[in-house]
């Protein structure tokens, strides 16, 4: 299957946006999942709600909120613009929108794997001399690694498919902010664009199915690994 340069550009940009969205949000995702799974603190339910909000809100609303927050004229956007960080109508903005939309999925997968870790193993690690950060690095993290990978793959797939928040926040500029879904949408708006759209749809289906299968496989591994004491 041959893709035209314009189609390639959309695929390439989508992968770039999704990759960075996933990678940058991963540490925060692990931290948030750990906090929700293990710590009790005031505002825990509120944090849980905020993390899940993008799953429930219409994506257009999320995009709108991003726009009013990060537009160069908005207070936060203006401040960041002075530091040279601009999100609105840039690929970085597409990555931000994708990261926020994918975050709940990532946190859910990681949180489940953290809850499956036997606290008694972490206690054993502490009695052998490991301080809390070492317990996390040498026991918790290796045991949840398949869950972290599964969460990342899900987040990546979600980011690849993000449409509403992206188009609202950063529009649909070819080569700048035009990702796979927005490209498919654009091709369908012009006469004769159906074939391009179809090819991109096939790419989307392959990427999504692959991600889902990989994520399932890794989830089974986490169950085996954590349960196999």
């Amino acid at each position, binding site marked *: 299957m041959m893709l035209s340069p314009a189609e390639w550009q959309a695929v390439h940009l989508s992968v770039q946006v999704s990759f960075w969205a996933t990678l940058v949000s991963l540490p925060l995702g692990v931290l948030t999942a750990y906090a929700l799974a293990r710590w009790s603190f005031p505002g825990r339910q509120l944090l849980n709600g905020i993390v899940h909000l993008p799953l429930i809100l219409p994506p257009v609303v999320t995009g709108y909120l991003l726009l009013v927050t990060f537009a160069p004229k908005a207070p936060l956007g203006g401040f960041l613009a002075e530091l040279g960080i601009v999100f609105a109508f840039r690929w970085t903005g597409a990555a931000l929108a994708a990261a926020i939309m994918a975050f709940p999925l990532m946190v859910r997968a990681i949180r489940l794997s953290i809850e499956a870790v036997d606290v008694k*193993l972490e*206690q054993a*690690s*502490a*009695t*052998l*001399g490991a*301080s809390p950060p*070492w317990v996390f690095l040498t026991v918790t993290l290796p045991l949840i690694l398949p869950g972290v990978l599964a969460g990342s793959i899900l987040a990546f797939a979600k980011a690849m498919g993000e449409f509403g928040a992206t188009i609202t926040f950063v529009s649909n500029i070819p080569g700048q902010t035009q990702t796979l879904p927005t490209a498919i949408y654009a091709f369908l708006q012009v006469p004769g664009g159906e074939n391009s759209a179809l090819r991109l749809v096939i790419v989307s289906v392959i990427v999504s199915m692959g991600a889902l299968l990989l994520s399932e496989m890794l989830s089974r591994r986490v169950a085996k690994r954590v349960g196999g*004491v």
Partner: protein
Amino acid sequence: MTLSVRLSHDFGSFSLKAEFEAPSGITVLYGRSGSGKTTIINAVAGLLSPKAGRISVEDWVLLDSEAGTNLPPHKRRLGYIFQEGRLFPHLNVRQNLLYGRWFVGQSQQSAELDRIVEMLGIGHLLDRRPQKLSGGEKQRVGIGRALLSNPKLILADEPLASLDEERKQEILPFFERLRDEVSVPILYVSHSPTEVGRLATTVVALEDGKVAKQGPAVEVLGDPMVLPAGARAAGALIEAVVIAHHEDGLSELDAGGIRLLLPKVPVPTGHRLRVRIPAQDVILSRQAPEGLSALNILPGTVETIRSGEGPGALVSVKTPAGSVLARVTRRSADSLDLAEGVSIHAIVKTLAIAPEDVGG
């Protein structure tokens, strides 16, 4: 080195108030479930913060609630042997064994690893994952892992409770060696009369969150007033020296001048052994019995009688071999006119003494 513990803690309606000392050797926290054993050991490990207390090894303070000292578990230099092993499933046996070494600061020679691997007989398991080990193998690796972290204090929480009888016999000798070879105090939680009889140097008997009695094993187990695991589990310890092995499958021992016959013990003559005599299996007789099949007859005098709420009474008999406990019915105690100072014979069937109740 001596571990000193003073604790008080409350959980709802249960309150724990305990104070004891654990010198070198194995100190068994002995009591039923719910007597507070696990709470105490977890407080010593730092996995639980008691309401108040002080825990120290010599002048090294682990917890002092008045001074505001409470070291986290990773600074307590422990070797904790858990009931369920708690081996790390993502590491192989060798990595599990060496886990504590990453954090010890000074690096130990690998000779230490070789020595402990050999002692525990786990050399052929080093490259396996914990999932592929049997219960007894897991427990041996757990012991090795605790020892290799170079601990100043060893804790063991019912390490044999989840094993079948055969595995228990496999692991018990390792704890005997530990008791005799390691200089740091070992705090060992158990409710098993066999384990306490075989292993304890010191016994801390716990009843309802209080220390009912503490002291050398022979003393605590021979006291009919202290029954941390119930009257059925009562049994005194006798120390004896092996003097001969006979053709008919019996071994002859000398206990304070009294001859004891036991099923053959696997140790050479001259060896000193501890024998636990279950109180249930001791018969009392006012006259020196004749024409009796039982081979062991210990003459002595009645020390104390404890009548329980049920039909039974526990009688402690002072013999030249040491104190022996006998559990008889109150009816028998009455018909024999048992009272303090009465002379009596304690009769023990040779085959009533289980091999696992005899140890070094």
